């Protein structure tokens, strides 16, 4: 209810900036920002589950399912991109149902352990089912994305595709979070026993939030497959799953824009280290710094700075307004 106006403004500004990227920078920047948007989808789609209090360290597995499904359908069966993307997202959702249904009654770290194990299972399947996925040789020759029969050959057009996807997904997620459903997710995360006592079917709602995240992670994965056009099983491992989680924490858990800010900030900043061992170090440091100095995440930075400034100017012993 608070700061409701701020979100559309921030989103509009981001959208305007995003649209200018191909005009201002070359293909390299277009590539980098397309991956930033993919990460924004992944981070934002984890939020419903996190809001329900479910620590999901396995989100990349659903991205992987979406990516491989869409890539294989398009490559082997010449399925149009829109359909293969949808199939990838739906299969990711179905797998989410299969994993979520038995394990969502577990809490906290136990649920987290299931998701970690699941990431490894999916990675191993992608690695070992060589006849289908080509295993560790990697899956190549994935067709470029197309819309209504038109193949998007230029980097810029593919970039606009992911910008569009991101905006639509963010809009849906924002709408949901600010609906009754979002309030129910919050209630489950804060006190699930109380929510139950008020008639909330927490098992069903947790599963729904989880599957919603899987659907959008699958979507992001499908785009990724047709954008990079090469899939390599270890990419979707534990590391990426933790990164998605770190986006949420570093950005801030308290507000819808948190994961968006976190994913944008961290993916841009970690770009020089992408694929190198330093990437892990970078993310660990970012996470540690957040826990130590900004427990509310980057979205609380302006407030924190304002507080610091008022402390410095008001050297007289006046009570802090934040108290």
């Amino acid at each position, binding site marked *: *209810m608070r700061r409701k106006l701020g979100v559309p403004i921030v989103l509009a500004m981001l959208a305007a900036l995003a649209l200018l990227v191909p005009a201002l920078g070359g293909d390299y920047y277009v590539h980098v920002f397309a991956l930033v948007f993919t990460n924004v989808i992944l981070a934002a789609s984890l939020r419903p589950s996190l809001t329900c209090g479910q620590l999901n360290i396995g989100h990349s597995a659903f991205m992987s399912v979406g990516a491989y499904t869409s890539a294989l359908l398009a490559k082997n069966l010449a399925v149009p991109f829109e359909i293969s993307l949808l199939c990838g997202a739906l299969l990711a959702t179905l797998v989410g149902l299969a994993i979520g249904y038995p394990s969502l009654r577990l809490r906290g770290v136990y649920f987290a352990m299931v998701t970690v194990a699941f990431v490894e299972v999916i990675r191993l399947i992608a690695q070992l089912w060589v006849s289908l996925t080509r295993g560790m040789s990697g899956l190549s020759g994935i067709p470029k994305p197309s819309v209504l029969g038109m193949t998007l050959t230029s980097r810029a057009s593919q970039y606009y595709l992911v910008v569009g996807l991101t905006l639509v997904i963010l809009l849906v997620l924002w709408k*949901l979070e*600010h*609906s*009754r*459903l979002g*309030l*129910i997710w*919050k*209630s489950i995360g*804060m*006190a699930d*026993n*109380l*929510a*139950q*006592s*008020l*008639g*909330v*079917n*927490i098992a*069903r*709602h947790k599963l*729904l939030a989880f599957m919603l995240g899987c659907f959008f992670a699958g979507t992001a994965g499908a785009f990724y497959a047709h954008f990079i056009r090469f899939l390599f099983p270890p990419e979707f491992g534990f590391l990426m799953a933790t990164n998605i989680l770190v986006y949420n924490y570093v950005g801030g858990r308290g507000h819808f824009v948190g994961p968006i800010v976190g994913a944008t900030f961290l993916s841009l900043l970690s770009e020089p280290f992408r694929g190198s061992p330093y990437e892990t170090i970078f993310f660990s440091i970012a996470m540690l710094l957040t826990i130590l100095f900004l427990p509310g995440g980057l979205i609380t930075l302006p407030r924190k700075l304002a507080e610091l400034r008022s402390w410095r100017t008001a050297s007289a012993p006046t009570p802090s307004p934040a108290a």
Partner: protein
Amino acid sequence: MAILEARELTRLFGGLAAVNRVDLTVDKGEIVGLIGPNGAGKTTCFNLLTGFLRPTRGSIIFDGQDITGLRPHQIAARGLVRTFQLTTLFQEMTALENVLLGLHLHSGKGPRQVLFSRRDFPADEIARGRDVLEFTGLASHADQLTRNLPHGHQRVLGIAMALAAQPRLLLLDEPVTGMNLDESGRVMDLVRTIRSRGTTILLVEHNMKAVMGTCERIVVLNFGQKLTEGTPSQVSTSPAVIQAYLGTGIDHA
């Protein structure tokens, strides 16, 4: 006529019988108190009645239907709603949002309807939420964050949320614990008003003044078993009850 009838209610934790063959009947329109020393099994009883724990043995009949083994949200949907000890609330939401969640049950919206609903909270639902806050005396705090409310108000908000779920039987777990005389008096007045509007009440409470002054019938638990039951005056003069609370005294030594 009985609205709630628990028969031989038993719950074992390992070898320990936290609740042991307790028969508990609550009639429509009553205010019944459930008391007993610490560890007597009162909260376990509540958890069994509301589905948070499964009884090891025994059955629970609510309004003529067997609700044994149902899950908490299913029991709440049948009109048996509880509050929690201390301040189990949605602390990071406003008071109104807390109550709106209480109304959730009767908005007729399962996950699927919720997902595809256009309007978040229709005006009539918000109005109903404000009505509940008005009734419980919290109207002026509707838009405050729950964690910023004083303790007494937080406890009342817990009751307000349960009321929003339109219970026919309301289970209150220590509604006035930690309150001063003035506050607890007001809460017990509220409890009587709720009853006069047709909601039956079963409450657990340590504050004897509140229990004795409000309940028409009192059930005493000790070591998981029903020690006795009766009117406040019968119970407060019962030697067994005095013994359970104060010990056996000199002759036992």
